[in-house]
Every structure is written in structure tokens, then in C-alpha cells.
């Protein structure tokens, strides 16, 4: 089967600094892949290259045509209501008709008329997510979408993103520095490290058949924290119970 994303021999440098060198990665259709790594390791650059916001020095990137991208910040246009912000991405009547569905899908039905300044951080990020869904992307790129939110809003949106990925059936690539977030959302986790960035570890998250579970992921957690060079925090500290939504 043709991969959803194929990155081959990618090299990106900013001036003298080589962020990625001869980097390759394949994402399978329908898969949710998390790219995990410390700040500044090049994971966001990789995602921006896939979204064609960064031009690589060399290498090839092949992707499905329609890409949705959610940034770390909501990046809503402050003069437009939620509804009009979501409609900003729409081309033609078919996509305009989808605006309301997208707003319903992210749970902002009752906030559609509000201006961005009236939204909480979580609501704004939901609006941003809805905007990225209007074109029915085959590939959803998530660039640390939860990292600017408080803990509760983060859990809330995490569940929403998992549900949306499942309902739309799209392929997703999530960039994050949060082990728990990666474990919650991803089928497969790639840990990046070093400079220029290289794949340190690849981890399949068990029971990616998406059954409801309350799995013990102690082993996986240990592997990921070890790959990041950080001691695993004690159970319960910042670790939400992992319950995959049906």
C-alpha cells in the first residue's frame, strides 16, 4: 500500500545549523504517528517540511494531497467569529457546507458566533482544529497542539483529537515532547534525538486495535523516558490513566 507520508533523505539546515540530515520516515495510511523529542530537536521542522512550510536543502517528501495542520497556538484571525474562522479554509459550496459539521465535531456548536478574544485556550484550539478539518484532510499534522493549554484543557482536547482521528479515519502525525500525550494518541512513536536529529527509538503502542483499555504501559513509558534521557516520573505524577476511547 502506498504510504501516507514518505520522507526520504531529507536534509534541512538553518544557516550553519543542520537540523535534519539524510532523514527518512514512512507513515502508513490510517496510522497515528507521534514524533517525540526534546525542544529544538528538529521535530517541528520535520512537520513543517511535510506541510511544505519549510523548503529542504535536499531529499524528497511525498504526501497525500490534502493536509490539515494544527499549530501550537490557535492562530485564529481575531476579527472573525469562530464560524468565519473555520470557513476561512473553505473553498466552494461543498466545503462551506462542511463548516457547521466541523464545528459540531470539535464541540463548539454553542460558541460558533463568538470572537476569538472571548474563547478560552482550549476552545480556541478546538476552533483551530475545526478549521483544519473543513477540507476533509487525508493527513492531519499536529504541531504540539496541546502544549500551550492547562492540564485539564489538555486532557479534554486530547480525548477530542483521538475521537476525531477515529471518526474521520485520517492519518495523523503528532509532534510532541509529552510522553503521556504520545502514548495516549499514537499507534507508533518515533523518538528523535541528537543534532542533526536521528531516530533514537521506535515504539509500537500495544492494543492499537483501539479497544477500550486501561492498559499498564509501564514498560513503554520506561522505554520512552529512557530514550529521552529522563528518569521515568513516579506513577500518577502527571500520568493520566490511559483509556483509549472506543
Amino acid at each position: 500500500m502506498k504510504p501516507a507520508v514518505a520522507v526520504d533523505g531529507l536534509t534541512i539546515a538553518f544557516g550553519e545549523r543542520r537540523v535534519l540530515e539524510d532523514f527518512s520516515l514512512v507513515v502508513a495510511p490510517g496510522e497515528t504517528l507521534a514524533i517525540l523529542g526534546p525542544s529544538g530537536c528538529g521535530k517541528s521542522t520535520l512537520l513543517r517540511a511535510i506541510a511544505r512550510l519549510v523548503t529542504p536543502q535536499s531529499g524528497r517528501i511525498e504526501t497525500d494531497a490534502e493536509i490539515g495542520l494544527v499549530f501550537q497556538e490557535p492562530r485564529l484571525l481575531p476579527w472573525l467569529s469562530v464560524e468565519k474562522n473555520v470557513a476561512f479554509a473553505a473553498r466552494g459550496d461543498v466545503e462551506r457546507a462542511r463548516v457547521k459539521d466541523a464545528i459540531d465535531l470539535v464541540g463548539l456548536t454553542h460558541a460558533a458566533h463568538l470572537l476569538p478574544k472571548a474563547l478560552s485556550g482550549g476552545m480556541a484550539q478546538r476552533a483551530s482544529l475545526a478549521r483544519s478539518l473543513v477540507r476533509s484532510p487525508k493527513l492531519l499534522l499536529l504541531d504540539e497542539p496541546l502544549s500551550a493549554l492547562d492540564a485539564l484543557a489538555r486532557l479534554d482536547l486530547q480525548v477530542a483529537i483521538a475521537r476525531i482521528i477515529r471518526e474521520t479515519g485520517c492519518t495523523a502525525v503528532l509532534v510532541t515532547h509529552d510522553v503521556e500525550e504520545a502514548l495516549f494518541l499514537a499507534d507508533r512513536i518515533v523518538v528523535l534525538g541528537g543534532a542533526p536529529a536521528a531516530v533514537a527509538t521506535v515504539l509500537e503502542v500495544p492494543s492499537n486495535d483501539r479497544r477500550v483499555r486501561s492498559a499498564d504501559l509501564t514498560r513503554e513509558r520506561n522505554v520512552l523516558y529512557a530514550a529521552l534521557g529522563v528518569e521515568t516520573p513516579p506513577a500518577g505524577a502527571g500520568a493520566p490513566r490511559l483509556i483509549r476511547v472506543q
Partner: protein
Amino acid sequence: MPKQLGRREAALGLALPLVLLAAWWYATALGGIKVYQLASPGDVVRELGVLWSNGELAKNLIASVGRVAFGFAVALLLAIGIGTSVGLSPRVERIIDPTLQALRAIPSRAWVPLLLLWLGIGETAKIVLIAIGAFFPIYVNLVAGIRGVDRKLVEVAEIFGIRGFALARRVVIPAALPSLLVGARVGLTQAWLFLVAAELLGATRGLGFLLTEGQQISRTDEILTAIVLLAICGKLSESGMRAIEKRLLYWTDGIGA
């Protein structure tokens, strides 16, 4: 802010003018100052009444307001067109901006002889002078506003393949609107300043004409009447622009909102 408090706060702005008015009245009423040096507030009110009843007030006001409105409108359109091109394209900026900055440095009165030679003493010369005065604040603020547009918002448009004119219309200009409106407010004030410069030269009507005429016939009441009218017009147009700003910038999240 509660409405009651707002009104009381706004009334504070009237205190200083009232004090000045009282001082003016006191100075002239005591007789220490001759009428040909400074007319009293009563004289000015009387003169206003005379101008009102003989139709001179309406005639001169309409002439001045019309010139300011026309000149300002021309400046606004040109500044939006040129400012947007310069703001969006570094190449256009390199071609146009140095020249504009040089023109901007020329004092208003320096234009007058040239405009008189080229355009005569008719309406066109006056409107051109006013437009020159109003253009630069609008242009400078708009260009700065476009430069200051959040690159992250432009990137969002890029993701959705929105470029060129659509990018300007849907993202850049709305985002630069606060700066454009500040420029327009300053530009309108400039238009009133340049109006007087324009009307001091060969005008047969207008508030500037009232000033000149008052000087020639040594009528301080007529001069002061024109000055009071200019102050009122300037203040009213400034408040009008602020009201427009408030209406168009409902979405901003600053402390003034």
C-alpha cells in the same frame, strides 16, 4: 466602565475649556485689553450670530468642510493603494519609498508657490495641498501596520494556499486595520492644518478666508470666530474618527476595548 462614571469622566474634559473661557471673559470685561487686540467671548458669539443670519457661516463652513473631505478622501484612497503595495512588496518599497520619504520631509508651505503656479488659485490647488498633508500619516502608519502583521497568521493563509491579492484582502489588510485607522485619524487632523495653509492663499470663502479677512480689516472677533470654528471642526472630526475606530475594531483585545 459604568455609563454614569463614563459621563462624569467625560465631563472632566470640559473643565479646562471653561476655565479658559472664564479667563478670556475676565480679561476682556475688565477693559484692560482693547477690542482690536482681543475681542470678548460676547463679541465672538455676536459675530457668530451675524454670520449665521447672513448665511456667511454656512457658506464658509461648507467650503472648508468640503475641501477637507475631498482632500482627505483622495489621500485615503492613494495611501491605501500605495501603502498596501509598498507594505506587501519589498521591491515596490525599494522603488517608491525613498522618494516618498523625501517628499514627506518638505514643509507644507513649500508646496504652495509650486501649486499656485501649476494649478492657479482655484479649488484644485487647495485640495491637492490638503491631500498631500493627509497622505503621509496614513501611508506611514499603514506600511508599518502591514509590516507588523503577525507572520503566523500569514502562514495559516499559506497552508490553505491563499496568496497574492486574496492574502492581502483576507488577512493582511484586516490585520493592519488598527494602524490604518490611527493613520487616518492623524491624517484628518493634518487635513485641517493644511486647509488653513491652503485658504490663506487667494480663497474667497472658507474658515481660512475668514481669518485673512479679519486680519485685513482688524476684526479680532472675526478672527477668533474662525479659530473657534476650526477648533470645533477639528475636535468633531477627531471624535468621529474615534467612533469609526471603535466600531471597526470591535475585535481587538487591548485595554481600550
